């Protein structure tokens, strides 16, 4: 009883409500975009985009921008570049690895200009969902709507081009244009996710729900819906557990996904031998 009343008490706080809104937004966007990340087999590129964003988030202050804006600029730029160079670059682990470590290095340099070096670094690297302000929420709603709007326009072509590029090309689709458009949406979703779980753990919100959903579901829509539900549930439960235990949300979200992953993986191995 006391647990429930504590929860209800927490839910009346504005910072918890903001956290729930921001968390839901990035969970939904991450689940949808992540689904295409898995189908397109570009999870390393997604991971790298987040790290590249570190330099943007820390360097933003030099240009007088907020960390969110700085990260957005840099990830969109690099995402578009990765998309334009196509398979050659974003399948090249070496090239991506070099760029992402350089970005982390640059980020560290920019961080050294801050007074509160360690505190700022922790927030950017590990997220600070309870510190999301009204203004940030507005920005996040806008960005989510733009990305989802973009996907609503071209996701049909994207799915075709992702599953069967040669055929899509034959039907007159531009693989490069689709790749660029997708990488831009991915950049936005990675940036939003990093506001919640931090740059280092973007993987949990952008890849985990979709990856788990794709283990369970064979059709596009069932997989998509399961992915969104998993993302939302993990974020909500994570936030509530954080309120109750006073331990970081990021930990709870990653722990929930890890638990889900183990369960699903075990289920698939032992019960569905014929299907993967």
């Amino acid at each position, binding site marked *: 009883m006391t647990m429930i009343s504590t929860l209800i008490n927490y839910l009346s706080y504005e910072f918890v409500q903001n956290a729930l809104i921001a968390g839901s937004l990035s969970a939904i966007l991450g689940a949808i975009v992540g689904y295409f990340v898995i*189908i397109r*087999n570009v999870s390393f590129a997604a991971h790298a985009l987040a790290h590249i964003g570190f330099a943007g988030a820390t360097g933003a202050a030099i240009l007088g921008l907020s960390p969110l804006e700085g990260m957005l600029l840099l990830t969109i730029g690099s995402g578009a570049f990765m998309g334009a160079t196509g398979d050659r670059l974003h399948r090249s682990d070496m090239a991506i690895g070099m760029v992402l470590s350089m970005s982390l290095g640059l980020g560290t340099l920019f961080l050294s200009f801050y007074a509160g070096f360690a505190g700022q670094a922790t927030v950017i690297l590990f997220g600070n969902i309870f510190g999301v302000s009204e203004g940030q929420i507005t920005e996040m709603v806008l960005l989510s709507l733009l990305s989802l709007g973009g*996907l*609503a*326009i*071209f*996701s*049909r*072509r994207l*799915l*075709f*081009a992702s*599953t*069967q590029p*040669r*055929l*899509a*090309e*034959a*039907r*007159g*689709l531009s693989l490069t244009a689709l790749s660029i458009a997708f990488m831009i949406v991915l950049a936005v979703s990675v940036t939003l996710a990093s506001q919640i779980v931090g740059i280092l753990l973007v993987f949990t919100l952008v890849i985990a729900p979709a990856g788990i959903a*794709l*283990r369970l579901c*064979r*059709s*596009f829509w069932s*997989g998509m819906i399961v992915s969104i539900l998993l993302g939302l549930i993990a974020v909500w439960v994570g936030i509530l557990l954080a309120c109750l235990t006073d331990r970081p949300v990021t930990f709870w979200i990653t722990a929930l996904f890890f638990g889900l992953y183990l369960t699903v993986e075990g289920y698939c191995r032992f019960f569905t031998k*014929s*299907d*993967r």
Partner: protein
Amino acid sequence: MSWMASRPLLMLKTNNYSPMIAALQISDLTISLEGNEILSGVNATIDEGEFIGVFGPNGAGKTTLARCIIGTLPPTRGSIKVLGFPPGKAARQIGYMPQGHAGFDSTALSARTLVEAACHGDRWGIPWTSRKSKQEVDRVLEVTEASDYAARSFSVLSGGERQRVMLAQALLGDPKILVLDEPLASLDPKNQALLIECVARVKRLTQTTVLFIAHDMNPLMHVMDRVLYLAGGNGALGKVDDVVTSASLSKLYGSEIEVVRVKNRVFVVSAEGNVTESECFHHDHD
């Protein structure tokens, strides 16, 4: 022969003066890739409803020709007309089955989902499959007898099953021309026969023009109308008995080639004693 009856109507609509529009009109086609001339001045006219086997050694330009026909590779010189149109304009009339399925061996999505994604996949919007599209997907999966396993993940299907799924999606929208790039690769003889029977059945029912690229011509002998043999940058189109002869192929390769016939099977052997079609070697000793 329902297509015969509909023929005059079609001609009235399109062009009064042309006696018949060729399915494919290839004139002086030359394609260079990174400085190498793959095809040099190939000419061929393929009529509607023909089943053409396309053969030749590795690197002879079979896939290059296919890419040119579907419009993803522009000719360096010369031209291709697909049903009277430049290749890009006729994309919807062509059902294409690319060689292999690179990268998608690991997809968890079902075979059916892949076919659904290809159905009107070039439209804008979200990947929603309408009832009509679902029926179309059902139809093509039935034609290739792939319905039974279409709900399973593409990655767990056998090579033969995958090829029938890929063939199914090439049939979406009733294309006038099928371009099949090495659909027999890595299939055992039984699955080869199944797939060929499937294509032959589709051709019989719909009078589709078929371009069937393959390495070994023997499994296709009974279904082909003519062969297009590519070698040394050149191409020869004609009946098997006219094209696949020692004299004709020697001219094409530019070196001495021997065509050996053993018990209704054809083997192409170079004068140095190498069998140019490696698979034949195996059959020889089976």
